[in-house]
């Protein structure tokens, strides 16, 4: 009788521990995905859809910025979805500092390049999945590990006097299905 009771208790402990650990690992692995999905939805709403540019055109701290956002970087962003094919991002860099970065759905920054790493002031990237055929599209291919993700372009604004130039730079940016 006692042995059977101990078996039940041991079984309960094993079951509780296994459930606890599985749930914990699931929550931890899905947390970045949920954060990314939330941000993607906000960007897409601001841009009028996926695979389109959304521009912050305000200098300094913003009330609706992400946690611990950088007020010295003026951001253009795009929530991308490559399910229907590659997306093209093209335009001009910004001389003080410019970078383009891509984040896969688990929030990893899988690609970043700045203006000093480009041969000239213009850029033409084609964001695609590994399964896409990009040879005929021209541009520099970038392979995303996941169909969905986020692109950010950062431009360093030393002060508010930089904003007219940055806004003109943003308006020359193209984000669209390739």
């Amino acid at each position, binding site marked *: 009788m006692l042995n059977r009771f101990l078996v039940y208790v041991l079984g309960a402990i094993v079951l509780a521990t296994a459930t606890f650990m599985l749930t914990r690992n699931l929550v*931890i692995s899905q947390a970045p995905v949920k954060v990314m999905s939330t941000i993607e939805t906000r960007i897409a709403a601001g841009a009028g859809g996926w695979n389109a540019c959304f521009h912050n055109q305000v200098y300094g701290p913003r009330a609706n910025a992400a946690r611990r956002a*950088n007020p010295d970087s003026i951001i253009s962003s795009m929530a991308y979805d490559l399910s229907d094919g590659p997306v093209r991002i093209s335009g001009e860099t910004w001389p*003080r500092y410019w970078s383009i970065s891509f984040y896969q759905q688990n929030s990893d920054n899988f690609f970043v390049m700045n203006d000093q790493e480009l041969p000239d002031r213009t850029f033409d990237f084609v964001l695609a999945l590994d399964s896409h055929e990009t040879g005929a599209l021209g541009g520099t291919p970038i392979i995303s590990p996941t169909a969905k993700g986020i692109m950010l372009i950062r431009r360093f604004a030393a002060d508010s006097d930089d904003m007219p130039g940055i806004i003109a730079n943003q308006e020359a940016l193209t984000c669209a299905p390739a």
Partner: protein
Amino acid sequence: MKYAAILLGAVIIVAASFFAARAITVNSLTNHNSIFDAFEDVDGTWMYSDKIGAAAASSVERARVAIGGPLGLSSKEAVYFIATRDDAGEPLRSQCSYRVTGVPIDTRWWSLTLYDSVTQHYVPNAENRSSWNSISTPRTETGNWVINVGPDPQDSAWLRTQEAPDQSFELMIRVYNPSAATRAVLPIIDLPTVERVSC
């Protein structure tokens, strides 16, 4: 009947463990100090992480950074330092005044930003300023610089803390495109001192 009781007990155990694990894990990840667990101490004042946006980050580090500071750049492009304490090891408090004194940082550009530690956002202020950067910060001929932090307005470079007393805040230094010489010694670079002037 016996097996039904065992099955019911198992379902209750699974449900209780699931909800307990979810609550504890979410609480742990969303705690406003959680992100600092992804950082290592540099000098007692500043903390550093090269796990921002990195594929090498553990799943816990990735989750904490995604929640507390999403979409940061990987260390290939920028590195981040955070201070939540002054040089004496005391927590940064809104009613105190601090002097942040630095030497030139060998990098393309840097910035110092103040955040409310609880909201993890900017501190609202009439000056519309939460940061100073390597161009906007006044510097001496040698390139040294001072940024004052506290509740009272200053004529020189100044970052305002929260109006309410006894609030915690943090300072973040972003270093973009650090030089090869700076990278070689990371994270032991010439970081600014954070001295409490009054309280």
